[in-house]
């Protein structure tokens, strides 16, 4: 383990240390939000939150709680920095994807504070890789102001049911329309592409529907290009909650089980497509 090669002096200088026996427990979940190069890291006593944003209309967050890590030391209330996520993922997967069971990459992630690079120590099969990734000052993530009191409609589905629909979505459609209603069609995904319109209906009494709380009929459209990346999070997850609020803002929350069966969360927030409002 790379831990043994570091002295106490090295360890003392870091304000954040997070270690994993299996780096995939971090890299897999980060891949689910890796649609842009830059990610904002925010670490607290509770764990790590990683945010990626797109054109101020889409925000994805990955939450990895402190107890997922085999070692988690934080010496300040919050530690924040911004880093190139693509580079980080290349580093986390430096040894490639091992298909041999029981063989995985161990990770120790360290940060000295403002102005210092993010340092990764990775080890697999006795080979050690050290990465120093430059950091920038973290931008303030957008606050989508999505709170439970404004939620008009909410469903929780088993991800399997949505995976098929999302993999087949007509990409020639500029928007994905979501209809939620206390009566038929209950929960409907619609696309309007070159080959025509397509609808995916999920009735409220379906086996896949774990929770159905719809108070009023609501139809909103979201840019397909913004939502498409969420498919990666869907693919990793076992359950997803879909909520819309009075403004038509969308919140998708994914429950992800990592290699060791531990639970992490990924959420996506998306603004409705403005054009529709004018109709």
């Amino acid at each position, binding site marked *: 383990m790379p831990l043994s090669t570091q002295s106490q002096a090295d360890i003392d200088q870091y304000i954040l240390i997070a270690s994993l026996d299996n780096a995939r427990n971090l890299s897999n979940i980060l891949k689910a939000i890796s649609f842009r190069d830059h990610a904002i890291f925010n670490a607290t006593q509770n764990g790590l939150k990683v945010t990626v944003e797109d054109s101020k209309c889409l925000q994805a967050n990955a939450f990895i709680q402190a107890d997922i890590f085999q070692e988690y030391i934080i010496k300040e209330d919050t530690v924040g920095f911004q880093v190139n996520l693509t580079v980080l993922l290349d580093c986390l997967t*430096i040894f*490639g994807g091992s298909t041999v069971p029981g063989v995985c990459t161990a990770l120790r992630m360290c940060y000295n504070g403002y102005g210092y690079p993010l340092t990764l120590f990775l080890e697999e099969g*006795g080979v*050690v890789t050290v990465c120093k990734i*430059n950091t920038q000052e973290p931008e303030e993530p957008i606050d989508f102001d999505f709170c439970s009191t404004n939620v008009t409609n909410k469903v929780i589905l088993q991800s399997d049911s949505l995976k098929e629909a999302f993999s087949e979505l007509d990409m020639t459609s500029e928007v994905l329309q979501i209809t939620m209603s206390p009566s038929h069609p209950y929960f409907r995904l619609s696309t309007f592409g070159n080959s025509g319109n397509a609808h995916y209906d999920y009735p409220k009494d379906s086996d896949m529907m774990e929770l159905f709380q719809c108070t009023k009929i609501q139809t909103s459209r979201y840019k397909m290009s913004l939502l498409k990346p969420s498919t990666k999070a869907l693919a990793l997850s076992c359950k997803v909650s879909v909520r819309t609020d009075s403004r038509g803002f969308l919140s998708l929350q994914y429950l992800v089980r990592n290699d060791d069966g531990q639970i992490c969360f990924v959420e996506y927030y998306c603004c409705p497509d403005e054009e529709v409002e004018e109709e």
Partner: protein
Amino acid sequence: MKFRAKIIDVGCLNHFTRVVNTVSRLTKACVLRLTCDHLYFVLSGRVASGGVSMWCELSQGNFFDEFQLEGVSADANEILLEVAPENLSRALKTAQNAKSVKIKLTKKSSACLTLAAELPSLSSVSRVVTHDIPVDVIPRRLWHDFREPQMPDFDVSIYLPPLKTLKSVVDRMKNLSNSLVLEANLNGEMNLKIDTDLVSVTTHFKDLGNPPWGDDGSQSSSPHRDPELMTEVCVDIRKLQQFLTGQQVHPSRAMCNIVDRRILHLIFLHEDVSLQYFIPALA
């Protein structure tokens, strides 16, 4: 000039195919040098290939059941042909399950290597698939370009780490940087390093072992060379990755020689094939 050869063993055919596939991944054009005992695929370092050169040597007897060669002249009993290995690769692909494969130097509208594969068929009559691969005969006055490369006066010779790991690391590093520094010492330690504005990455390999070149080697290092002292060379990552990715033949021995800041010399040895690849340092 005459050349005809035949492969009848399916294992030999597959092995030969894999070697040709490996060569075709490394270069679009090369010279096929035929002698009584060996075949060589040669790429001599030119500006066009980015200074990279390759020497792949096969013992003819381990592949061919029949091998007849009449070279250019009695005292120059060799034939050198410029060929696109991809063409040979494609022809061999159709010959995958052949009962026999014959290769012959022929003259159609121009010089060709004609490959005839006898394929199994349900009827009593075999099907024969023929490929005419165009080649250019290299005149004798140019042969000096394609001689066996001399072992460079290297500073360090070291066995490579497991290829799977090496390849994964180089693949990822290629996403991050165009150039890579490879350094190694006589203590069996090797480091791969990249350093850019965005990131620096170093991978440390240990306990690799150093080949015992001994008396016949041209190891320039004096007996008193500090085993911890690293020698390094900075190369274009794509060239290294191209070499590692192309490999279809799993070598029994893989090693490299480093001439400090000048050349990375990679050697892959197999029972009946040896492959040498020279990557010059980036200017």
